[in-house]
């Protein structure tokens, strides 16, 4: 009993030791998953090397692997997020020149905590403090699209190459689209009351958090994010497990393969009205990819689902006039199209 209480209090009294211990435990567990899955399957009454055994082993290995990865990454990102509050990010971006500012904004979009319900207050707050419009958009495009959940799931299920391509191309779309919107000088298409809001001086505020607070922030993110997405992950992996064992390769190759020029625009067109989070889309992505759809087409689809959504545009309508929203959607969609085609052409 005393040991349990001591363990519960450890993050507060000995944060460094707690962190070191967690990292070691995490690594040991992660490394032993494959052997564990194999061992459990060997105990089950199924023929080794059969389709069923293949599917079960895939699930027993992948489900804990992805959930463990997700927990680790979300914990670390929760701690990293505690350094980058919206206020600090705004202070870093206020008065930046375009170009450099777009690059910085897209990258800050990845590490700043962001919830889509805060998009409007964040937008106004940035504009009020003199963050240029195009730079604000670079941030708003990158923040939901390039997030740790999407990246971790891509890494866990498809490997490092796909995850880093998504990261690089997502950042590129956010930087370019923001830059183009900035060039278009569309400040007059903000709603009038937004332009009349009083200017404010961006200040970062003092950071008085200690390691124990950051650990708490990490735990809070794990509870909130992993608590919400784990069912999607399990469904996604179950689909993956069935495909792994039963569905023939190249099932989707003709429809969404790299051969036809219209596959990328079609994927984006289908993706925009869909509204779900990164975890919800992964099962679909997995199903498409393993049936032979081209990687560029699938990533374009995934980006358009996450970055462009009807509900978000309706929310943004409160602060933007229709023409600016249309420009935003058109520029981001073109960016995603370009990326999808580029991808299919190169690979």
């Amino acid at each position, binding site marked *: 009993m005393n040991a349990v209480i001591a363990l519960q209090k450890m993050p507060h009294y000995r944060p460094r030791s707690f962190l070191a211990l967690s990292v070691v435990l995490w690594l040991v567990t992660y490394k032993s998953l494959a052997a564990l899955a194999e061992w459990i399957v060997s105990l089950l009454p199924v023929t080794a090397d059969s389709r069923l055994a293949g599917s079960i082993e895939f699930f027993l290995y992948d489900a804990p692997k992805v959930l463990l990865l997700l927990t680790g990454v979300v914990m670390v990102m929760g701690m990293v997020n505690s350094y980058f*509050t*919206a*206020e600090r990010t*705004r202070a870093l971006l206020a008065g930046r020149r375009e170009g450099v500012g777009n690059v910085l904004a897209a990258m800050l979009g990845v590490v700043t*905590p*962001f*919830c889509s*319900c*805060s998009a*409007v*207050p*964040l937008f*106004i*707050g*940035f504009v*009020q403090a003199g963050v240029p419009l195009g730079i604000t958009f670079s941030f708003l495009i990158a923040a939901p699209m390039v997030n740790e959940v999407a990246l971790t799931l891509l890494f866990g299920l498809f490997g490092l190459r796909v995850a880093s391509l998504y990261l690089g191309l997502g950042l590129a779309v956010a930087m370019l689209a923001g830059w183009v919107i900035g060039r278009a000088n569309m400040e007059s298409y903000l709603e009038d*009351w937004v332009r009349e*809001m009083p200017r*404010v001086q961006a200040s970062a505020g003092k950071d008085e958090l200690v390691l124990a607070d950051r650990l*708490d922030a990490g735990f*809070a993110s794990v509870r*909130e994010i992993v608590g919400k997405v784990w069912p999607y992950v399990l469904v996604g992996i179950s689909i993956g497990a069935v495909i792994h064992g039963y569905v023939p390769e190249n099932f989707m190759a003709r429809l969404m393969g790299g051969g036809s020029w219209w596959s990328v625009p079609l994927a984006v067109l289908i993706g925009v009205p869909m509204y779900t989070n990164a975890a919800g889309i992964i099962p679909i992505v997995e199903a498409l990819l393993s049936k032979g759809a081209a990687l560029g087409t699938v990533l374009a689809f995934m980006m358009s689902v996450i970055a462009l959504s009807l509900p978000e545009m309706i*929310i943004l309508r*409160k*602060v933007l006039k229709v023409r600016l929203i249309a420009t935003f959607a058109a520029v981001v969609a073109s960016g995603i199209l370009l990326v999808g085609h580029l991808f299919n052409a190169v690979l």
Partner: protein
Amino acid sequence: MTHVKVLGSGCTNCKVTAQLIADVARAKGVAVTVEKVEDIRDIMAYGVMSTPGVVIDERVVHMGGVPTRAKVEGWID
């Protein structure tokens, strides 16, 4: 009587926050009024960029996410 405002556009986290504050106040036997501020202009007047935000007696004490129960307990005496 403590007057608490929860700033946010009506998302789940805002509702959870308002409920949490009401629960803590009831558990402590403290009389509070919890008001939800959903108009974006009113929210911006407090300079809050990440919702939900919490305002107690016109002072912003919290922003960005659901506060922990311990934190809420510290606000209500």
